[in-house]
């Protein structure tokens, strides 16, 4: 009997690895803890910790004469954000981020819809590659390339001339707030570059949301008497809002934090990103840079709460 029992069981092993394996099997919480502690430590200590450390420095004092930072806590930096010069930077960046997000969503939706609903197999792979390939190229190279495309005598201007639309371009460039002397020094040019660079970040989440939409929902809508336009407004669009929200969080926060495109394309004047870069690099005013870092975080928190209140995440 004992011989039978012992032969039916796997051979009892006393090796340390086996004992460890048995222990982990018996105590799943220990197993989970061993898996989770390293990434949580990384996330907690290194990621969140350093971010909070940075924000804490926003309360330090910067002496304008000695250029020295002393750890005396003050609200001065945060209050300085509301000085007209700084407040302008925030509004300028925010306006651009909103415009870029809206335009990206409008451009991305039809592409994402086509990818999700009408392509299969190789065509779908082609679209994935076409959308993502620009992201494989260096971001700086793309930004510089755009300065050449938009420059006076550049490709963009040539196209406009070929189409005999130069007066129209001049008209658009003369609009205050949008235009400038050429495309590459106008807000319009900066906007075009931002939309180009962040578009993939908008297409992919929308495409994923549309991909998850069961075809039977669209059939049910048609079956209940909805014309295609009604199905789009009542079913497809509401159910893709989480994807649009996710994509706009990318385009919004990336524009808020970018410091290269504002330097290369568009009129002079700081963006939040380039201001942070200038404060901590050239000037060495780390506390003011830290204070500016807080702005995108607060803006995105406000944005998310608005999106949530609009019910964007109800369908998740």
């Amino acid at each position, binding site marked *: 009997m004992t011989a039978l029992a012992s032969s039916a069981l796997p051979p009892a092993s006393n090796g340390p690895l086996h004992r460890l394996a048995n222990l982990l099997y018996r105590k799943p919480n220990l197993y989970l803890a061993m898996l989770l502690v390293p990434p949580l430590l990384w996330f907690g200590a290194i990621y969140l910790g350093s971010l909070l450390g940075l924000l804490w420095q926003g309360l330090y004092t910067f002496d304008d004469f000695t250029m020295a930072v002393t750890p005396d806590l003050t609200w001065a930096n945060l209050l300085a954000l509301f000085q007209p010069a700084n407040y302008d930077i925030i509004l300028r960046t925010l306006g651009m981020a909103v415009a870029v997000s809206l335009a990206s969503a409008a451009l991305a939706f039809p592409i994402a819809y086509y990818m999700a609903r009408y392509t299969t197999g190789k065509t779908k792979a082609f679209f994935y590659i076409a959308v993502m390939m620009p992201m494989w190229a260096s971001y700086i190279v793309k930004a510089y390339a755009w300065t050449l495309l938009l420059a006076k005598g550049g490709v963009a201007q040539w196209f406009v001339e070929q189409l005999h639309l130069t007066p129209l371009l001049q008209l658009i460039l003369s609009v205050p707030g949008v235009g400038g002397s050429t495309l590459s020094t106008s807000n319009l040019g900066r906007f075009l570059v931002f939309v180009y660079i962040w578009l993939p970040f908008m297409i992919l989440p929308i495409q994923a949301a549309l991909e998850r939409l*069961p075809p*039977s*929902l669209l*059939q*049910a*809508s*048609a*079956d*209940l*008497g*909805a*014309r295609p336009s*009604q199905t789009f407004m*009542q*079913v497809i669009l*509401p*159910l893709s809002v989480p994807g649009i929200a996710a994509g706009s969080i990318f385009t919004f926060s990336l524009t808020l934090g970018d410091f290269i495109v504002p330097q290369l394309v568009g009129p002079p004047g700081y963006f939040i990103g380039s201001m942070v870069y200038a404060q901590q690099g050239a000037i060495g005013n780390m506390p003011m840079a830290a204070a500016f870092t807080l702005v995108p975080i607060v803006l995105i928190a406000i944005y998310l709460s608005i999106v949530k209140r609009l*019910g964007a995440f*109800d*369908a998740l």
Partner: protein
Amino acid sequence: MTLAVQFTDVSRVFGDVKAVDRVSIDIQDGEFFSMLGPSGSGKTTCLRLIAGFEQPSAGSIRIHGAEAVGLAPYQRDVNTVFQDYALFPHMNVRDNVAYGLKVKGVGKSERLARADEALGMVALAGYGERKPAQLSGGQRQRVALARALVNRPRVLLLDEPLGALDLKLREQMQSELKKLQRQLGITFIFVTHDQTEALSMSDRVAVFNKGRIEQVDTPRNLYMKPATPFVAEFVGTSNVLRGELAQRLTGSATPFSIRPEHIRLGDGQASGDDVVVNGLLHDVQYQGAATRFEVQLENGQNLAISQANTQWQQSAPAFQPGQQVTARWAREAMVALHDVEAR
């Protein structure tokens, strides 16, 4: 009586596959009509052709006399209850039910009142504020039904709506569906692969196989007078005897069907006009209400026999596996079968 749906030589081809192959059906107004068949037999494609999700490759489909080929789903006066229910996850139950009225431009107060009325009809009054995700499978099923019925369609299409429910709920929904259909007088077209479901609910059943209809008949006729070997074996269980054995027993090589419960198991003496065969009993399965026997005939074919256990006393089984037995049945219980092509 007018026809609710009429198929005339309808085919639907996907690449090389004939999903529906020259099907003609007449479905009466107010009828509970089932389409029964194994998966891939074309029954769901036929339903989708009526709904307008598919267009036929050939043939004509008339809904209440009007040609429907070329019409989009939203132009047809039919509604569908989907297999996966297809409830809109971002709307609450009331808005789901009111959706069909909303897109047709019915005013808000009227459509919400009618939605609540429809929810009451499926015993879900008071559930209007919930989201579909907060409901059980059976409740979602009822919402899908209410959403289709609130539009007062002349034809209701049901695509295996009970497939995902457990047995008890299924049986309850079967009788409720039947009751609802009688009460409303709407034509129900019900697709299922479950023959018990089809037999117990329907006025008439069409049996599909490989894109073609094998037989359209009342449940009773389908069971008692199957037309083809496929119907005999798919609807209930049956013994289909063919070839030499059929020749010897009936004097004709036409295959025939005999139901297991119409066969009696004896122990030797034959009498009267019964058909008698001998064989080896090789399996006995006790199934509660009935006992099932497997007898191997002399030509090697298996014969299934089912005997109802009508005695309430416990008694020793009369037959043991390994025993030589005689099986007999009334000559009239045999049904001659014809292949669908020969019909």
